[in-house]
């Protein structure tokens, strides 16, 4: 795949993007230690800190969610690659406080391995850290064996409610409980219409032929349910929402939070058209589309398509979702 991107030396991509990122948001974030993205104004020590880690190349995720109401520290890795345990331990030590630290980990092998080693080290050092794992990708069949379910853009929901809970003064166990409740009540499905490439190597990481789509394809080209003919927005939205609602067993009368997350070259136009159909389908099922989020929140370079994330909300989760936040990539006012 020809690289049509504006970059400089491939090895410098991550450093340069982080440099530009903090220059763009000097009021909100800065770099500390070994390229850790931290808040410009740290929160109080008696509030739980929320930390996450993840490969780069998915901008604005995850560092875009550092700021009041969401994350305290993000540990960005190399392109599509988890950061190693040492930088994660550095972040956990930096975040360490009497109130404790919540680590949000997306279920991808590299992230999970790094988190495992880092958590063991943190515990050995006596840090008060707890971990929540997100694995809400329903393209892997079984909900009962979630080990294989990947963490997709739904992590944003977990970060948002956990961040709001921390800001409200919830204890570490309460933050963890909220994060886990959010995690258990969410489901994501992706659809890809065009592939993507690794910005440093140019290697194709996902391929979809013209006029085809792949429902369930993961963030790094992980196999989905297989290719099929590109369908209309309405037909695709219906197909995906039915799978999600079934997997999460959403009942009539329940409140849903729905995110339509563009993963790269999908246009906002398409995402809005999809949301419109989601609303119609929910109306027909008596499901209440309580909150929505439409935009690019976790991308995969120039990949075409989107992720549909749904979450069953209760009053507390809605309240935490609605709490203000002010980060580079999500501001609720």
């Amino acid at each position, binding site marked *: 795949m020809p690289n049509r991107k504006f970059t400089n030396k491939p090895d410098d991509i991550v450093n340069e993007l982080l440099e530009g990122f903090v220059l763009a948001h000097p009021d909100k974030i800065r770099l500390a230690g070994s390229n850790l993205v931290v808040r410009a104004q740290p929160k109080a020590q008696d509030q739980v800190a929320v930390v996450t880690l993840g490969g780069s190349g998915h901008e604005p995720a995850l560092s875009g969610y550092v700021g009041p109401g969401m994350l305290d520290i993000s540990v960005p890795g190399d392109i*599509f690659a988890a950061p*190693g345990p040492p930088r994660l331990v550095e972040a956990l030590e930096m975040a360490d406080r009497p109130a404790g630290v919540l680590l949000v980990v997306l279920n991808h092998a590299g992230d999970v*391995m*790094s988190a495992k*080693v880092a958590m063991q080290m943190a515990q050995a050092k006596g840090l008060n850290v707890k971990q929540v794992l997100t694995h809400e990708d329903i393209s892997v069949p079984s909900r009962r064996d979630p080990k294989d379910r990947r963490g997709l853009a739904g992590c944003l929901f977990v970060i948002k409610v956990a961040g709001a809970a921390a800001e409200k003064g919830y204890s570490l166990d309460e933050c963890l409980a909220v994060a886990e409740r959010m995690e258990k009540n969410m489901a994501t499905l992706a659809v890809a219409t065009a592939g993507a490439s690794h910005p440093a*190597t140019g290697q194709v990481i996902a391929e979809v032929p013209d006029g085809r789509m792949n429902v369930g394809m993961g963030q790094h080209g992980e196999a989905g349910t297989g290719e099929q003919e590109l369908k209309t927005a309405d037909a695709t939205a219906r197909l995906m929402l039915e799978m999600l609602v079934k997997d999460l067993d959403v009942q009539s009368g329940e409140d849903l939070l729905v995110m339509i997350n563009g993963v790269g070259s999908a246009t906002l136009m398409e995402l809005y058209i999809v949301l419109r159909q989601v609303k119609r389908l929910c109306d027909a099922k008596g499901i209440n589309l309580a909150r929505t989020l439409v935009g690019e929140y976790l991308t995969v370079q120039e990949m075409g398509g989107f992720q549909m994330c749904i979450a069953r909300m209760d009053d507390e989760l809605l309240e935490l979702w609605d709490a203000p936040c002010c980060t580079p990539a999500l501001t609720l006012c």
Partner: protein
Amino acid sequence: MNAIGYEDIKRMLLAAAELIRAHHQRLSELDSFGGDGDHGTTMVRAMGCLEKGMAQAADGRIDDLLNQVGWAILGVDGGATGPLFGSLFMGMGQAVGDRDAVDVVLLADMFEAARESVANVTQAQVGDKTLVDALVPAVTALRAAADKGEDVLVALDEAARAAQQGAEGTRDMAARFGRARNRGEASKGQPDPGATSMALVFQGFAQGVRTHGGS
């Protein structure tokens, strides 16, 4: 050779790094087949970390040397490779403790600890087409040689041979871990890059000891 010391361990590490560098293109090629084509460059970076770790180690202590190397490799920030190979060296370091001479039995203990340390971060088993397919037979061969009271160099040679066979054997497997797993059955036909690296590391270990032993 009945036992090896601090300088031998350093030679083992450097020889492994050299072999990896010599083969990095092949490693990336193998990773292009089922993965994302970066295994060679990541391993080269990991070997850079290895040398940085060596430079930071307090002179003379084998465990500190291996821990520093393991910690540095953990920090390679390059996906799966860091935690896996970093854990390998950390495991060896923990097992050696404050000993400054390693006989074949201690060497077997160290590699068993390394295997456990890797198992701490991945559930991959033999047959899943990962570096575990090279690591496990190598450790088994080393233990068997230790049980027979073989020379350290002979034991390492046997381990290297077993690792090499294990890596070759991944050729016809379908990947069940790592990125190559996305390709399912289509990942068959080429050996696993991580297993190939692991075999090169064992081969390097043997070579590092041989340069000194002069055999």
